[in-house]
């Protein structure tokens, strides 16, 4: 098994120490950092997302895989000169105003970071104006709005309407997710996509981005 394959397995199985060791080994073998990230780590996190969506692994397994990924990135960051790390895209994430829950959003953030997206995390209780401000500053491909409480769903509708009227259309796709969020709600609220869980969020994000490119 090659070093990158071993690295892939260590991230997939959530083995942080092994991940660090294989990254060092990969660097000693003069494998480029970006290749280590994309083939050894991003691909492992993609598999983690798929396994999670299929209920073959669960929250703890996904979390430790993300922890291994994060530890690996920390080792590699000094080797990435300037800002030359290649990201697949940028996503702005936040939990909607009046909702302080961040578990789901944090899981999604981990998955996006783990699979090569740049994540701008606005935190919780985010008003619609702050989403807009961040979109205008960061020019992301996606904005993800999370809600855990049924009572804040009207805020999600209001935020999407506000973003649309402010010109956020083809340039930036809007995804929604969270416990009370359904595909019907997402459609009625005029979101571009709905993610039922952190694992499938990546595939859905890529699909809506491709629709944007087309």
């Amino acid at each position: 098994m090659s070093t990158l394959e071993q690295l892939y397995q260590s991230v997939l199985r959530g083995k942080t120490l092994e991940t660090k060791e294989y990254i060092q080994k990969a660097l000693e073998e003069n494998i480029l950092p970006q290749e280590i990230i994309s083939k050894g780590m991003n691909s492992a996190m993609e598999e983690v997302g798929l396994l999670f969506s299929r209920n073959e692994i669960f929250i703890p397994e996904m979390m430790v895989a993300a922890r291994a990924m994060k530890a690996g990135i920390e080792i590699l960051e000094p080797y990435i000169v300037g800002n030359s790390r290649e990201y697949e895209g940028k996503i702005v994430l936040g939990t909607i105003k009046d909702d302080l829950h961040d578990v789901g959003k944090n899981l999604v953030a981990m998955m996006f970071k783990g699979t090569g997206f740049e994540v701008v995390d606005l935190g919780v209780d985010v008003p619609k104006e702050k989403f807009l401000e961040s979109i205008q500053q960061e020019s992301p491909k996606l904005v993800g709005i999370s809600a855990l409480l049924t009572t804040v769903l009207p805020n999600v509708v209001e935020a999407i309407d506000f973003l649309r009227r402010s010109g956020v259309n083809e340039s930036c796709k809007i995804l929604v997710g969270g416990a009370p969020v359904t595909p019907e709600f997402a459609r009625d609220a005029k979101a571009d996509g709905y993610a039922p869980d952190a694992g499938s969020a990546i595939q859905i994000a890529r699909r809506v981005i491709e629709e944007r490119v087309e």
Partner: protein
Amino acid sequence: MSKMTSKERVLATLQGKIPDRVPILTFGIDPKFIKKLGGGSLQKTLEVLGLDVYPIYCQNWCQGVPMSAALSTEVAEEMQTSGGTFGGWDGIDEFGRIWRRGSYVGGVVRTDKDIERYVPNVKLEERMDPVRTRSIINKHQNKAFSLTTHTGPFGLTMESIGLEEFSYIYVDNRTFIEKLLWERTKWFAEIAAYSTELGADFILMGDDVAFKGRTFISPNDFEQLMVPCYRYIVTRAGIPVIWHSDGYITPLLNAALESGFAGVHSLEPTAGVDLGEVKKNYGDRLVLVGNVDCGEILCQSDLEKVRQEVRRCIHQAKEGGRYILSDSNSIHAGCHPKAVVEMFRYAREIGGY
């Protein structure tokens, strides 16, 4: 069939007998809803809803502030969020959970010393107020009474550590999780046993182990970890225990049977629980409680949609008994009062056997 009292109806259902009609209950009522419907009076709210089951609550505290603070005029309105029944909670509670403006945001338990600190003294009389509890039970002898509390061992263990840290410790140091779980199990079992002594007819134990579409841990792990804990609670309680959990718990229903639970509540339809399928596979051994969608149907005012939902649940689960109609989580602040009142009214109208 002659009309039963609420108590007779509920007990018949729990025993697997056919009652006069499908009983009705709720797992919890948000203080903001109590203010809307009952003018701040829980008693009046229960009367308006016409429930068969009245709750016995177990008091908890967050930095000295009691759970019932949300009904208090001493806690400012802006401190009482619509996030749940804990308006006014801000800080670390007695179990090690962190609250911000009434919403749960994380946990602090990490070490053995934290376990000692954050498995609080049961303080049975202070928590359960035996004089008041017995007086209420005596005043409403035709009602069934359940200890209704959301301090089951798994959920409290996970929340008091925080989901992220819990996940890491669960993989790195399972023994710590098992230790905390057992302390929480013994704690809850004492509360359950005391409520039986006070006159409860059954226990409605809230212990969230799942969310939309999945369980937190694998069903195999769950069975190994939790069945012994739950069996201990069921044995100590000595009366039927109904297990409440949010989320997609269908893969855990075999474990529920192994644990000795009399039934399961919420059966959340939007999380993926199919009441018809559950009834077909488990309806002869578990009392099914819930499934009326409180995420959307009970939050709007089209009463025909509410009636349609009630008809669906009763049609899917009533046959053969062992069904109690309820909301699929709780009557939260976002519920529309007319929808909730109509849910229970209509269930009484069409739920006869």
